């Protein structure tokens, strides 16, 4: 054996920075970093110069000035004496409100339509296909404008609900057993009242926290019940039937707590000139909610359909061969797998719906864009601050939703090792 030669002396040459793969990526990153910083500096410098030319500064102090404008519908107390910051919060909550309602409704519509589209019923499957194709292929703005036009042009004026004393009839009638009235100015829905509510704790109203506690108690007892059923199944081989106890435990406690506090509905009723009682929801919210949920519902339907179709028939047959009954096949075999396919695109549809809620501009609903990016911006002339803040808030909402949904997605996704 000859001696192994000493490895050649490593000498560093400048050309290695480009030709040697060990250093090249570092070189590229340094160059990109310098270019990026130069670009950012250029933009910031331009902004500073432009602000100087316009005689403006960059400061968010305007948020604490008096807003001076009214907002039709607010979830937290607000008057025109409140600050712009308060107005921004009102707008943010309104955005979250319509997004939340829209996501719930779109999911319900989507599951319903997605399942019916796979139905063996020729007529229903065709109708659902029609719905999906029509809503998916036409801009959301059109649906918002059309539903808005239906509400403003076709719906009766509130006065039409006045009962004519001569005939004993009104020109317009309320919906859902005389509890909901659609008018061209607002939608009157029943409110919830309690005759003897418990005192509030930590800002939560009495009925709310007590019902939540009761629901949590019911859920806890239900989990104990399930555990007991599993124990019995393991010992004896037969599982005691628990569905009726589960149903009772999940519904009875909170209903009983609410009933004990004197739960009753405050149904709106026409009284001389206008509706009294109940809650008057601005039509802007109703229109936006309907349009967003119908539009997004069509996309969700496609996702649900694809999710169900992605599970091969063999899974159902294998589960049946194991002796599972149809209900358990669905809950133990099909759904867990279908959800894995459905959840990720569903998250992005929820995000889309939230972002699309900024189309509130078309109906004058005072969301984040209507307050901070609308009237506040126009009154204070602070485009730079208002738009950057608005984008930051939307970004935070989006990242928040996708964060929460990703946690859920990680919980249900296939565990690969």
């Amino acid at each position, binding site marked *: 054996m000859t001696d192994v030669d000493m490895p050649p002396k490593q000498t560093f040459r400048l050309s290695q920075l*480009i*030709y040697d793969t060990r250093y*090249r*990526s570092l070189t*590229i*990153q340094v160059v*990109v*970093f310098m270019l*990026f910083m130069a670009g950012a500096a250029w*933009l910031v410098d*331009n*902004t500073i*110069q*432009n*602000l100087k*030319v316009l005689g403006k500064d960059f400061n968010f102090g305007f948020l604490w000035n008096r807003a001076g404008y009214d907002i039709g519908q607010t979830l937290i107390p607000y008057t025109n004496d409140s600050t712009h910051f308060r107005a921004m919060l009102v707008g943010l909550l309104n955005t979250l409100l319509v997004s939340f309602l829209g996501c719930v409704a779109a999911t319900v519509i989507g599951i319903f339509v997605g399942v*019916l589209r796979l*139905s*063996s*019923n*020729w*007529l*229903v499957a065709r*109708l659902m296909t029609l719905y999906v*194709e*029509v809503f*998916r*292929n*036409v*801009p*959301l*703005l*059109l649906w918002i*404008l*059309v539903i808005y*036009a239906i509400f403003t*042009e076709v719906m009766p004026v509130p006065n039409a609900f006045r009962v004519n004393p001569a005939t004993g009839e009104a020109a317009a009638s309320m919906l859902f057993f005389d509890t909901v009235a659609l008018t061209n100015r607002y939608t009157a829905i029943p409110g919830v009242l309690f005759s003897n509510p418990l005192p509030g704790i930590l800002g939560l109203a009495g009925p709310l926290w007590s019902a939540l506690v009761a629901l949590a108690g019911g859920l806890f007892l239900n989990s104990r019940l399930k555990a007991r059923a599993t124990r019995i199944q393991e010992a004896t081989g037969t599982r005691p039937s628990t569905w009726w106890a589960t149903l009772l435990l999940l519904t009875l406690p909170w209903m009983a707590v609410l009933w004990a506090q004197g739960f009753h509905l405050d149904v709106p009723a026409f009284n001389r000139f206008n509706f009294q009682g109940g809650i008057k929801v601005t039509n802007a919210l109703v229109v936006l909610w309907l349009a967003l949920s119908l539009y997004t519902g069509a996309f969700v339907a496609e996702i649900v359909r694809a999710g169900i179709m992605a599970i091969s028939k063999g899974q159902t047959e294998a589960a049946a061969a194991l002796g599972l009954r149809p209900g358990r096949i669905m809950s133990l075999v099909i759904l867990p797998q279908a959800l894995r396919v459905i959840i990720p695109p569903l998250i992005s549809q929820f*995000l889309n719906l939230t*972002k*699309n809620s*900024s*189309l509130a*501009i*078309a109906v004058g609903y005072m969301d984040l*864009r209507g307050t901070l*990016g609308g009237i506040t911006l126009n009154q204070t002339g602070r*485009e*730079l601050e208002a*738009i950057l803040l*608005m*984008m930051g808030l*939307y*970004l935070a909402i*989006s*990242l928040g939703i996708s964060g929460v949904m990703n946690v859920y997605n990680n919980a249900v996704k296939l565990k690969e090792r």
Partner: protein
Amino acid sequence: MAEIAPFVRHEMLPAEPAPASEAGVLHWLRANLFSSPLNVVLTFAGVFIVYWLVSHSAPWLMHSVWAADSLGECRAIIAERWGPDATGACWAVIRDRWHQYLFGFYPWEHIWRPITVFALLFVAIAPVLFSSVPRKLLWFTLAYPLLALWLLWGGTIWPEVMIAAGFGIGALGFMLGARFGSLGAISLGTLAAALFWVVPAAPLEHALAAMLPIGLPEVSSDQFGGFLLAVTVGVGAIALSLPMGVLLALGRRSDMFLIRALCIGFIEFIRGVPLITLLFVASLLLNYFLPPGTNFDIILRVEILVTFFAAAYIAEVVRGALSALPRGQYEAADALGLDYWKAQRLIILPQALKISIPGIVSTFIGMFKDTTLVVFVGLFDPLKGISDFVRADFAWKGIYWEPYIFVGCIFFLFNFSMSRYAMYLEQKLKRDHR
């Protein structure tokens, strides 16, 4: 012994008709509409919905008026023909204003220009969409954006020629730089093009324009509107965002931390905010970020932001396709000794882009629908901008459904055919077991 005559049938019996319950209309009805109690209920619900829709819209559609000069005249005609209580559609507004819905306020004597551009669009995308079209046509596809730019906005042809020359010089630089590897080629190409555009392009253009004033009458951006605007913004954005989206997707999967971080930051920021806020950036903030005194065209500003928006979404589509490729493809490319760009260009991207075409098409459908949002920065989109303009005329005050139906149908036709094309491609490109 009695002769036994064996019975042998010589001809086939005619086939019996299927039982009445297993054939014909009855069977179809039973199988498809009344197969179970639930289906019976669903069928009746469906029939009721169809009846409700038809009974509410049919009379209105039957009482259509096509020739009138105002909504009042329409209503008078309807009342005269079908009685005072009849309601009817007044399509006369479409007959009167269709050109505004399609072309906005584009000068009527130059209307051949947008029509030519639109017709040439199909020639330009044919080689991209269908593999049977001759490959030579791809050169026309490359030249098409500049041709469209010149035809639509007019002016002298030299700015567009300068842009094209810049690309040509860039390509020359790329070829010269190819000796120093892919990185050298790209840097040299970009540098050469940028140098040409910054230094000699403007004076050269002025000189050429003075010598040879070839050109068309100018049309300003505020004369654009309707579907012309929607298609211009939409097609422009998708064409520009495709290369940008591919680069962003590659960047997001890069091994280099800084590049990955920048790409993720850009993509997630753009995808996290609504398009409306980006359009506000285009109309209100872009002037802050650019050197003082810069003021350029609003359509161009919107185009830039819409391109960013589309690029972020396309980047995600392409990233999905890149991660769907088997790892072996990357390893095989490495084993062949290809460098990064050659591996991407020859092995990875052709496969990845093929998988991502359906996703790109649906991004484009979304993009095209979103072009209606430009109305909120003061442009005349076909849906709200032009409709509001038409309603501002006293003759058509208070007309709602007809314009919406007209515009909705056109959007539906565009998007439905695109989504069908995407489905056709998905079927055609499928390489798995069927």
